């Protein structure tokens, strides 16, 4: 039952991404890519094997809708794979009991730090796949930084709103 619900949420998230967030633009060329948040919040509950498969399906579905040929699939699988290491980097704190801390069990500052680096890495993978190479490196970093800041702002608002409740 939970699986069905999670899959529905993922499909909804991709649809929102493709038909709403991709139409939003900021400074003429920045898009928020919020669908990745699903990887951190939902996929974390599944075994590693299925995390990767579902991340691929998530990105691939968006690729088909956007016609962007594989870049989202690649980036989503990458961030799903890198997630535990990132979490390790931001470190478990005293309250954590799990091996891989879930978002809810991380303290707020660690959680935000984790989310920002995760978004940054995902966007970096996405944009370098999109331009297929690292030429124009400064431009690439700039676009990655601003875009992830933009995505992060949305997530920050959501996190703060959640924290207040």
């Amino acid at each position, binding site marked *: 039952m939970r699986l069905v619900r999670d899959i529905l949420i993922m499909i909804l998230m991709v649809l929102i991404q493709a038909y709403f967030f991709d139409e939003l633009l900021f400074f003429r060329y920045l898009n928020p890519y919020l669908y990745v948040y699903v990887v951190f919040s939902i996929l974390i509950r599944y075994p590693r*094997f299925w995390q990767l498969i579902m991340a691929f399906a998530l990105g691939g579905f968006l690729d088909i809708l956007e*016609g962007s040929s594989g*870049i989202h699939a690649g980036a989503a*699988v*990458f961030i799903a794979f890198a997630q535990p290491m990132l979490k390790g980097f931001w470190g478990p704190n005293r309250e954590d009991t799990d091996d891989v801390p879930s978002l809810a069990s991380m303290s707020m500052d660690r959680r935000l730090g984790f989310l920002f680096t995760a978004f940054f890495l995902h966007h970096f993978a996405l944009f370098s796949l*999109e331009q297929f190479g690292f030429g124009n490196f400064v431009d690439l970093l700039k676009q990655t930084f601003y875009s992830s800041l933009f995505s992060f702002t949305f997530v920050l608002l959501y996190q703060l709103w959640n924290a207040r409740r």
Partner: protein
Amino acid sequence: MRYFLLLLRQSRILILFLALEGIALYWVVSVQSYPRAKFSSKSTELSGQLSEWQSNLESYLNLRLENEHLAQENANLREQLNQSLLIQNYGADTINDSILNQRYSFLSAEVVRSSHLKRDNFIIIDKGSRSGLKRNMGVIGPQGVVGVVAGVSSNFARVIPIINNSLTISGALAEEAYFGPVKWPGLNYRHTELTDIPRYSKVDSGAVVLTDGRSRYFPAGVKIGSVLKRELQADQNFFKLKLELATDFANLRQVYVVKDIFAAELDSLQNPVQP
């Protein structure tokens, strides 16, 4: 052997990761870049179908603007009709119409999906190989040049617009006939760049840039854009011109595919078969 199986089992996540990334990378390489395009017609067909209903809805919302563009284009065409030309040569010569052979034919198509905010933008239109479309045909819009057909499926075609990093076309100044490559530098979908214009040219902002015979995929004289500002290139001998594109890719619906009837003949000259 047992050890090997154990190793395989321990690193199965890594192997899965590499396999999935491999698939994604193959997907990217096989479709994305224009010169290497091994076109995947299935995914175009699917994405075309999905977008068509959305596009139908949007075309109603944009109807008024679209009408304006078409009306403007009609006016431009009307100017070129014989009725609006004054014949100033009375009697002396015979007019032999047969020297005018049809070279280009145009096929109108509608945009079903497009992007203009990415680094590698693309457009999908609703005519495909059934309508006789082939790769490398030019695509123009009511306002100016749009792009080049990169791949076709039976009902749709994928167009690489000139706001894509991998497409370079030739553009020439309308007034002075100096020409150079037009290549999109990225970021802003309203602007592009024309380089290699000699320093002694008198070009300045406001000058119009058109396609010329060298543009290959397009008839001569289709508008690419107008000059916003000029600056010297690093080599100090040529100007780099910043252009404002004639076509607004954020608002593009109706396009025309250009069929060059003499394309095969031109190709045979360009790449002669060695005897």
